[in-house]
């Protein structure tokens, strides 16, 4: 009896985890995949075919026979989607790089701060989450617009003669992305840097490394896992970001999130919107999978 209970306990964890994944990732994924292979229709739901549950096996067969890759062909043929994908990747890559450059010194300073201040610093990093993301992005409009705080401050200081047209430009999207995702870069980096044994830096210095040399040869490589985690946490959601390009970006910052939104709500083309969603998933999942593979091989190689 106790052996059975023990066995149940061992099985419960994986079952729960896989059950969760199946219910909230596997199933929706299958549904979106199916819709992306369907055709749009003026109906409810707005696509065909729809599974006929009554028809049994034949219903499934009819469903599968009616599915095709037409939407994906559209994605490849129409340069709009490729442009949007490239813009998304460029914004995500550029934003992530900028976040790393800005976030690293912040995380480093936090990890080097006196122990008793560190919980406060972490809390301050998280405080913005207490306000709605939407409101915070709207606030940037007030800062960046033609007669906004930034332009007025720069004019008052005499640094510029004319207001800068930052709002509705790629620069504004970059500002918004860096602002919104900074905690996701800083916190994993901080965790990695905070764990770092300061004795290692002293050992490097003792063995002849300058401050910069010790940083490059010890601190940086040992904080790399934190940097990679932060980069993934930023890169993946930025690729699909909708609110920031929609509110701060202009007509020239067409990102996948906005394309998806307009296909879904303006055109009511669920199948094409689903295809865009699938393409986006592939776009962000592929680098992650490749990275994990490389990492696994690296670990295996080591004796």
């Amino acid at each position: 009896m106790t052996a059975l209970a023990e066995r149940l306990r061992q099985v419960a964890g994986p079952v729960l985890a896989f059950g969760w994944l199946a219910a909230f990732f596997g199933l929706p994924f299958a549904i979106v995949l199916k819709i992306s292979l369907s055709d749009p229709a003026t109906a409810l739901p707005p696509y065909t075919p729809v599974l006929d549950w009554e028809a049994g096996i034949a219903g499934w067969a009819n469903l599968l026979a009616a599915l095709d890759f037409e939407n994906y062909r559209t994605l490849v043929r129409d340069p709009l989607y490729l442009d949007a994908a490239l813009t998304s990747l460029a914004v995500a890559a550029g934003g992530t790089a900028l976040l790393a450059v800005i976030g690293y010194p912040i995380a480093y300073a936090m990890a080097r701060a006196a122990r008793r201040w560190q919980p406060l610093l972490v809390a301050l990093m998280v405080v913005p989450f207490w306000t709605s993301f939407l409101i915070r992005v709207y606030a940037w409009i007030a800062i960046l617009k033609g007669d906004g705080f930034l332009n007025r401050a720069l004019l008052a200081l005499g640094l510029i003669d004319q207001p800068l047209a930052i709002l509705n430009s790629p620069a504004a999207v970059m500002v918004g992305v860096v602002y919104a995702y900074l905690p996701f870069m800083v916190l994993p980096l901080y965790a990695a840097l905070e764990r770092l044994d300061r004795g290692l830096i002293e050992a490097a210095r003792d063995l002849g490394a300058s401050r910069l040399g010790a940083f490059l040869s010890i601190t940086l490589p040992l904080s790399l896992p934190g940097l990679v985690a932060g980069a993934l946490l930023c890169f993946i959601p930025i690729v699909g970001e909708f609110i920031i390009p929609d509110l701060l970006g202009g007509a020239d910052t067409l990102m996948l999130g906005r394309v998806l939104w307009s296909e879904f709500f303006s055109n009511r083309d669920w199948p094409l919107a689903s295809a865009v969603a699938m393409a986006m998933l592939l776009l962000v999942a592929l680098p992650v999978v490749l990275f994990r593979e490389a990492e696994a091989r690296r670990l295996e190689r080591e004796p």
Partner: protein
Amino acid sequence: MTTASPASPPATGHLRFERVAKRFGAVTAVAEVSLDLAAGEFFCLLGPSGCGKSTLLRMLAGFEEPSAGRILLDGQDLAGTPPHRRPVNMMFQSYALFPHMSVAGNVAYGLRQAGMPAAERDARVAEMLRLVRMEEYAGRRPDRLSGGQRQRVALARALARRPRVLLLDEPLGALDRSLREATQGELRALQRRLGTTFVVVTHDPAEAMTLADRIGVMEGGRLVQVGRADALYERPASRFVAGLLGDATLIPGTLGAGGAGERRALDTALGRLEGFDAHGAGPEGAPGLLVLRPERLAPRPDGELPGTVLDATYLGDRVMLRVATAAGPVLRAAVPAGGAVPEPGAALRLGYAPEAAALVPEGPVSAGAPA
């Protein structure tokens, strides 16, 4: 303050501390330490945690700058020289091996910083790994090594740059007892072979006595006594040193006439006893302590210390007796095992040679932090 034993090597000016002090805000970690080490000496800083020994070591490595005083290495003042430019290397307490580098990578690190050509570097790494018998583990990561292996890699890494002085911060503290004893011998042999000046920091008196040519005992930021192990053991200058290096019975009393370097009397509750005052225990009439080492006390019919055996503990190589005296103090005496062992309750007289018992000032158990 420094009380050098007559047996200590003459000052050579290889490594000199001149009235070195270190204050952190209002806290004095090291107070006016003056010390002179000979080239090739194995020196040990001994003291409880917080006594300033690690701070002294860190000042030598360059991680802290002295608040006052100078540290001279071969006549050159080290002040202002950053750690990476000092001809001094350190073996860290927790070894501080770089986890993302192999054993060979760790040992090569310092050589790479020095810009040594690859061929020469590889040869030196191989030589160092051979020295600590770790050749077979060159490709391993530190986390795949045992504690003893890590210690040897840390040693090889610190020695690879051929420093003029090697600093070792609690080098064997992380090893278990049996491994520690074996490693002490290896470390001693290695130091003799290389002829490098070793400065070890430890809180373990037995380790200090095993390893070092000379020991500097630190207490509350001060260097309270410097000398060879036997000098510190037989001729402690204070109650603290007497208690730190081995077991002792301390008998309080009033000092008789005499001074440093003489046999003096001490009026105690057990009567007038004699001891040797090596360092000046105080003026006549001042309170003093007689330090009686257990192995220096022996049962003798004419012994000056009468008492009653409380118990006898068999320790293999000796039997430890606890003997109660009429006036109070319980004496501990070690007698050879295998002989006749007195029964508890038996009357016994213990005697000692006055030259083998040190007289020290009656001070507090610990001097505490310096003002």
